[in-house]
């Protein structure tokens, strides 16, 4: 089961924060349960799949689009801004939601709720859910933090190895060239000696020839 609790303000009681819980099984469009509380009383209502379909038809809106609007208003937290207006009439236990457009607002839906005989139980359940959620988030947070630190250590480690490799590659090139030059110079020196020797022998031969 999924649920979302948000803070809302009612048009008729703007100074009293109310809490709206929307819960659903598979998807919002399969139907959902609305719970409304002011911290003292509580009201609950079920909105069925067919009722959602009916509301969408009444508004000449595609069902998917209508559910999307409901989601934005009741679940996504957008309801805390000025985009939506909520109201609840205790007399007929009717919860209504309107969407504000530029100069106009249009009715998004109205749902019948029933006053709960034991509101304390509902409120305790909300608090329990919140505390569980907080604990879960904190645990996730700690886990992500540890992961984060591990990834940073790993990154530093591989970055260090990469820098060492770059440095080692440069050193290798320098080192090999130095050794190569030493060995090459020996060969060049040998070639020079042989040239010199050859020149001397050839010079000697020329002198002999000249004498002859």
């Amino acid at each position, binding site marked *: 089961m999924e649920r979302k609790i948000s803070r809302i303000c009612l048009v008729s009681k703007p100074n009293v924060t109310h809490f709206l819980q929307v819960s659903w099984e598979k998807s919002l469009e399969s139907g959902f349960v609305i719970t409304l509380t002011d911290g003292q009383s509580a009201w609950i209502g079920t909105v069925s799949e067919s009722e959602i379909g009916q509301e969408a038809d009444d508004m000449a809106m595609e069902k998917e689009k209508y559910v999307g609007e409901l989601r934005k208003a009741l679940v996504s937290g957008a309801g805390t801004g000025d985009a939506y207006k909520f109201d609840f009439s205790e007399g007929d236990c009717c919860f209504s939601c309107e969407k504000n457009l530029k100069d106009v607002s249009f009715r998004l839906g109205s749902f019948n709720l029933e006053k709960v005989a034991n509101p304390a139980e509902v409120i305790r359940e909300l608090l329990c859910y919140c505390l569980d959620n907080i604990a879960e988030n904190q645990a996730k947070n700690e886990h992500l933090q540890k992961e984060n630190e591990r990834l940073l250590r790993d990154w530093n480690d591989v970055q260090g190895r990469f820098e060492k490799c770059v440095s080692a590659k440069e050193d290798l090139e320098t080192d090999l060239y*130095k050794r190569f030059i030493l*060995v090459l110079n*020996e060969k060049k020196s040998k070639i020079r000696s042989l040239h010199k020797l050859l020149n001397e022998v050839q010079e000697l031969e020329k002198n002999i020839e000249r004498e002859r």
Partner: protein
Amino acid sequence: CPSTKQYFAREYDCYGDSYFVNTDLTQLKEVFSGIKNPH
């Protein structure tokens, strides 16, 4: 002995690389590894 010394001096440079015989990867690596301080 002097003649052996003379022979090696004729055939090899001071790093052990032959003047006359072509080198290959293994031999060259061995010659390079024998160079203690290339700097």
